[in-house]
């Protein structure tokens, strides 16, 4: 029974941690994309002839900004379904 309480504790802390990973990562990614998007729109309004070039760069940057967030999501999913911290309990 003691084991069950410990397992429950590990799982509950893991659940909270997953929420934090995904939530905080999403904050960073969304604010980053927002700032970058607003700069792109400003530049597009000033110089419409540059829109194709800037758009290509913008997608590249979107992928780079999302990178850390998605790495966090992947790790969070890994902990959700194959929690290595539970291996201690067999």
């Amino acid at each position, binding site marked *: 029974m003691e084991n069950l309480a410990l397992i429950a504790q590990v799982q509950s802390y893991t659940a909270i941690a997953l929420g934090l990973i995904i939530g905080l990562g999403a904050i960073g990614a969304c604010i980053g994309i927002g700032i970058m998007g607003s700069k792109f729109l400003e530049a597009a309004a000033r110089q419409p002839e540059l829109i194709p070039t800037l758009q290509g760069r913008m997608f590249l940057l979107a992928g780079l900004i999302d990178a850390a967030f998605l790495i966090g*999501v992947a790790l969070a999913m890994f902990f959700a379904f194959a929690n290595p911290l539970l291996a201690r309990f067999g």
Partner: protein
Amino acid sequence: MAGEAPESSTAYITHHLTHLTVGKGFWSFHVDTIFMSVLLGIVTLALFYSAARKATPGVPGKWQAFVEMLVDFIDNTVKEVFHLDRSFLAPMALTIFVWVFLMNAMDLLPLDLPGKVAGLFGIRYWRAVPTADVNTTFAMSLTVFVVVIFFAVKAKGAGGYMHELFTAPFGAHPLLWIPNFVLNVVELLSKPVSLAMRLFGNMYAGELVFMLIALLGASFFTFTVGSTVGMLGQVAMGAAWGIFHILIITLQAYIFMVLTVVYSAMATEHH
């Protein structure tokens, strides 16, 4: 998935996340990843070979026109940043782009399809997306890492490269050698790690969301109101996520390629 019903949704997901592994510990090989990546590499080569065989100097056919567009696009991307002889880098960039795109595109196959096909051969586990396996992405990024160091040594000489490792960016004073070196090593090591983890994270998360969406419609055959709503929801969300994922796979292949080229270009500068 050969005809066995999983006992819970978690079991379904963990089953779909298991690789077909041969061997134990350090020497375990993910046979499904190796097979899919080699198969898609052969497909890549076959596609370009067929374009080269049927190439005409007259009016090009559609496939030739598409391949020419692709090659021009990659060539311009490399030409913009890399100023040495690009006869090695541009084909490598093209290979990376098309191969990574095809491997990522395996994620768009219906979720249970590779499992059913593998079940016909008696194979229990099959993961169809090679780039959702850390091994593939790290193999590619470590190769890119070696190529980048190779370019750096080629442009600056082995001695010049060592000198730069210890004296850039702070200066040549012997007291600064350690901070310089630490900074350079961190910068050098962060490149392959971030390259691999970015691609892996995107593909793994994409696959996982597809699995979670699939679970929504899993209870359809109980024919309750809730399960019908779940089934419609699965179709709608699956379509939306699939369309978004088409953008993501192209973007991630493009990013991997551009960063390879940019890292190589950065390695040959600093004069």
